[in-house]
């Protein structure tokens, strides 16, 4: 049980860590000042959530690893984030499409976790859900605004959706870890979140005048750690460089 719980907590924390990192890459170069502020704010929320999820993961594991140790001293195969969040930023449209696709799932997941039998998880979910509600609203508005904006913005948002949609399915695939979480009353079944997500997606895409790709093919291997994309390793070389170059230092 504690192994599966550790895995589950790493999944939550790695998603927020990796996406928080990706968004922070935008620092200072967003299309408009308000977006700089909003992106930094989102990254800040996600890094804060990472401290909570990975902190709890370390406690559950009970091997003396804290959130920093988990964030900065694991290699690619130990990361449990969804493939979606490790995808490179691309243009601003792709960044916001990735955010929107993830936030829709993240929000539903957190709402489910608020009813978790594990009080610590329920508490983290309750704190995070307020932040993620805002992330989702903002990403939704941006996807609609740019999808239904100019011809160019529409074209770019459709391209972003086409590029990222194959990474949506992984969020809803259940595996042995999920089954254990469901039977222990800790987390909702991922598959159970799909109908609500699809309805949300259809409504937003319609308003954004975007076309959902017909093919439902889903890449997987992120949350299980079986096969990440090549992008994650490059991200870690930057994110973990200092800690690994100076392993004796405290900061």
């Amino acid at each position: 049980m504690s192994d599966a719980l550790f895995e589950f907590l790493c999944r939550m924390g790695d998603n927020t860590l990796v996406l928080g990192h990706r968004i922070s890459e935008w620092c200072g170069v967003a299309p408009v000042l308000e977006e700089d502020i909003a992106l930094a704010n989102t990254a800040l929320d996600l890094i804060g959530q990472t401290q909570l999820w990975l902190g709890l993961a370390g406690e559950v594991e009970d091997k003396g690893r804290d959130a920093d140790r988990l964030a900065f001293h694991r290699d690619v195969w130990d990361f449990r984030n969804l493939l979606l969040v490790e995808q490179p930023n691309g243009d601003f449209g792709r960044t916001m499409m990735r955010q929107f696709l993830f936030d829709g799932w993240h929000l539903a997941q957190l709402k489910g976790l608020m009813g978790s039998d594990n009080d610590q998880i329920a508490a983290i979910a309750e704190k995070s859900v307020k932040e993620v509600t805002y992330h989702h609203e903002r990403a939704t508005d941006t996807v609609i605004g740019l999808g239904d904006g100019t011809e160019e913005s529409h074209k770019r948002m459709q391209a972003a959706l086409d590029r990222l949609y194959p990474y949506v399915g992984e969020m809803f695939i259940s595996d042995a870890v999920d089954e254990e979480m469901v039977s222990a009353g800790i987390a909702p079944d991922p598959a159970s979140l799909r109908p609500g997500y699809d309805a949300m997606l259809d409504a937003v895409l319609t308003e954004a005048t975007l076309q959902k790709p017909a093919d439902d093919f889903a890449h997987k291997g992120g949350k299980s750690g079986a096969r990440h994309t090549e992008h994650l390793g490059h991200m870690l070389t930057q994110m973990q460089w200092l800690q690994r170059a100076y392993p004796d230092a405290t900061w």
Partner: protein
Amino acid sequence: MYAQMIKSTGEGVKSLDDMEPDERAFQERINAGGKIEPKDWMPEGYRKNLIRQIGQHAHSEIVGQLPEGNWITRAPTLERKAILLAKVQDEAGHGLYLYCAAETLGVTRDQLTRDLLSGKMKYSSIFNYPTLTWADMGAVGWLVDGAAIMNQVPLQRTSYGPYARAMVRICKEESFHQRQGFDIMMKMAKGTEAQRKMAQDALNRFWYPSLMMFGPSDAESVHSAQSMAWKIKMNSNDELRQKFVDQTAPQAEYLGLTIPDENLKFNEETGHYEFSEPDWDEFFDVLKGNGPCNTERLEDRNRAWNEGRWVREGLLAHAEKKRKTAIAAE
């Protein structure tokens, strides 16, 4: 400072007796410690001077995100990453309030942005220096924000209302920034040998550029005299620089770091530190565009603006469509 070498009218300060009634009333209000608000009468020179000063300050906040943003993706702990993100976010926020303050003077943010991107308007020389190690995040907070605060605290009493009020908010956040910078330096200075070396190296590289932030001596400057009469500049550059050195030298000693100035010593008689002037030729080179990072900083800002055009146009087009639909529905 975040605003350096700001030109005023260049005509010298007029006496009250030489002023027309409007201008005289304006100056008397300032002399009495009153605030000027956007709709009040003001001399054209005051308005233009303030646009240059507030605009340059805003640009400094915006460009200032870049050297620190350079380390967000390499921050050593989750907490340090979060603090740095919050700090850079604050700076973007400061940019926003300052652009809003400038807009009350009849200029648009887009116009100011175009002037920054074309190189017509400047930002503080300090942001043209590179951040090379994590200790630089400490040095920037401790020295650069420390120098900025010296100037910004008195500006809370500046004569222009919107600027003074923006400065009140900014100062609260800046003092937090300086503390976190000092905290990073302390960790580094008390850390491993490599960390101490990094901390000393950061101090070596940032000391003189920080002194340059105050600008060259302006004791003889007609521009500064006018700005001071209008209370949009509250202290001379030399006064603020001295205050900064007096504050910083004991802090460096506490950290066990050496300020790279052989002439630095405390003068018991004056109660102030004596110190060497920075290399002003280097300062003027940086202002001319020849600092270590001028090219990159402007390239980054231009790229962000150009690559973001489709986003701004897309969102505007959508807002326009919604407005038309709303009107049609009425």
